């Protein structure tokens, strides 16, 4: 995985500039607050490796957080039902994206762009333009709380454990038959179909996985920051940048889910480094754009010389 040397170099640069960052507690807190983007990168990976895009995840996260706040309305007893509802909501949005893309043959770029706009508009309409209600402390614990005073590691955020569990599941899934099928579908859908693979079904499941990842990310992110209309703004681009940075080919068929998640971590590390060197946060979108262009250019140069 070419991402590992890049990540190592960034970590060395941070260690030189800000040695405190390398203490366990600081690293744990960094990993915890990076959890949402890493989760979204994992979800985006399934879709991209199967040859599609999911631009709807950012607005899905916003919608989930705003809906959760209104439904929970600061009542702790509604926490778990709403968490389940969010997971269901995420799967349904993914299912719709998948069915429209595979059955109606709408390019996923357009399908998910449409979904993005529908969700933005629907949330605005439903909430009259300002979020209502509130998230309970029980809901927010996944994004805020931590196991205090763990030996060696110090403070271990719950978000990090959620992330590790999701990462293990994602890796196991990609090592199963389904994972191999998904990569085959992205590599060459025609061949896959001739080999008896149900291409549409595999792609639809990838969209559902992305929707579920967005729901988990929304739970962690809503917990971290509380209810807001900007909760998920721009996250779809962060996730796509991370996946590309992690060595996954746009167009599908190549790359590892671990690479995509490490790509997200590398992106966050780069932003942390920029912060320590006093670079304005306003430059972050520019850096993301440059990474997407560079990574795709490098990958297409390599595949044409193959």
């Amino acid at each position, binding site marked *: 995985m070419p991402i590992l040397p890049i990540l190592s170099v960034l970590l060395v640069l941070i260690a030189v500039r*800000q040695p*405190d*960052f390398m203490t366990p507690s*600081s690293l744990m*807190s960094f990993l915890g*607050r990076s959890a949402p983007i890493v989760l979204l990168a994992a979800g985006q990976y399934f879709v991209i490796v199967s040859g599609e895009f999911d631009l709807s995840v950012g607005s899905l996260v916003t919608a989930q957080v705003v809906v959760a706040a209104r439904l929970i309305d*600061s009542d702790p007893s509604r926490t778990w039902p709403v968490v389940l509802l969010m997971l269901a909501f995420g799967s349904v949005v993914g299912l719709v994206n998948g069915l429209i893309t595979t059955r109606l043959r709408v390019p996923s770029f357009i399908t998910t762009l449409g979904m993005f706009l529908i969700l933005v508009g629907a949330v605005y309409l439903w909430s*009259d*333009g*300002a*979020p*209502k*209600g*509130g998230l309970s402390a029980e809901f927010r614990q996944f994004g*805020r709380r931590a196991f205090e005073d763990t030996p060696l590691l110090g*403070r271990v955020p719950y978000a990090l454990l959620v992330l590790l569990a999701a990462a293990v599941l994602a890796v196991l899934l990609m090592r199963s038959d389904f994972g191999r099928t998904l990569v085959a579908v992205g590599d060459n859908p025609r061949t896959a179909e001739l080999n008896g693979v149900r291409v549409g079904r595999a792609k639809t499941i990838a969209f559902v996985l992305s929707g579920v990842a967005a729901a988990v990310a929304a739970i962690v*992110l809503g917990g*971290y*920051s*509380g209810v*807001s209309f*900007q*909760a998920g*703004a721009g996250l779809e681009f962060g996730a796509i940048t991370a996946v590309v940075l992690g060595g996954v080919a746009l167009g599908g068929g190549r790359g590892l889910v671990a690479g995509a998640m490490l790509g997200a971590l590398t992106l966050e590390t780069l932003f*942390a480094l920029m*912060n*320590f060197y*006093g*670079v*304005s*946060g*306003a430059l972050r979108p520019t850096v993301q754009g440059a990474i997407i262009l560079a990574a795709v250019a490098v990958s297409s140069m390599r595949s044409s010389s193959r």
Partner: protein
Amino acid sequence: MRRTGVAVAAAFLSVLAGCATDEPSATPSGAASRTAGSGTGEQSKFFVQADYDNELALLDVSPTGPSDRPWEQALNPKMAETAKFKKPGPYRICFSNAGLNNPWRQVGFKTMQAQVEAERRRIKEFIHVDAEGKDQKQIADINDLLGRSCDALIISPNTTATLTPAVETACRKGLPVIVFDRGVNTSCPVTFINPIGGYGFGHVAAEFVSQQVKPGGKVLALRILPGVDVLETRWSAAKVAFDKAGVNVVGVEFTDGDPAKTKKIVDDYLQRHGTIDGVWMDAGAVAVAAVEAFQDAGKPVPPINGEDQLDFLKLWRDDKLTAIAPTYPTYQWRTPILAALRILNGEPVPSPWKLPQPTITEENLNEYVDADMPPLHYAMCGCTDLPGYPQRWK
């Protein structure tokens, strides 16, 4: 006379200076994060010395009018004659609203609707049109309302310059026009209603933070976004106060009103500087997120300012913060209805109608915290005596 001349000249010069130093390459955020020391950056080009002096002077003026009803009070009122507008009721009052797109406007509009309900005997119809934050829609809205035989027209403009011609057109129709919240560049409306304003807000918060921070302490300034006049005035007054007090402002950052971004920024500064000893904010929307960033990092919460949103006030009381909350009171949404009724009855009204702008402090905090109201409710709504309280605001 001479003093006014000097003030005008100073204002003119400061505007010139603002223009001359307004280089696009030096954004406030970039400039501030690069320089050490009192890093407040360049003064905002929105800063007008005369307005600043005027607002700071108003902070010390005692208002005229009933002290338990601040929405009826006025600061240094100059009365406008309205006898020519007198007509028999009940009236049809029309309202062109810039938008309902933030919790402040939501609370304000509910307060206004309740005020209308309280005056049901004298108002036969209340027509509200929401411009959804779009200038073009509001221009069309005002035009439509002029054809609906309104007895009085209330306008809360979306932006100052673009809406001015539409307001002037409305004035020419001969019906009384009342403007509130954001202003317009014309004196044709019968009155313009708003509280003291952004300089007062920013100054009160910055004075508090300057006094509470230990000498040499590091202050972080969090702003929502650049280029909006009401927010620029808040920051420019704070900049003057911080520069005067020699406060070490280590960063001026934009949060976009996003709590997640706010927490990351505060976290970044904590990691970069170890401690932050004071936080100034230009609006209360993300004050809770800023406080949480300190709490989640296991650091003491430094002196901070918020606004009168209940989530912040509750946190302030429960966690015993060192805090202050200047306000931009939502009770100002009551005043335009009262003004319209007075004008249609031929009674003189203050013009401009400057409302008091109270500050919530440690001493009066308990009067404003109400655990039963939602977290995004604004405590300074002056709405507890209105029909439908508290259910309407939940």
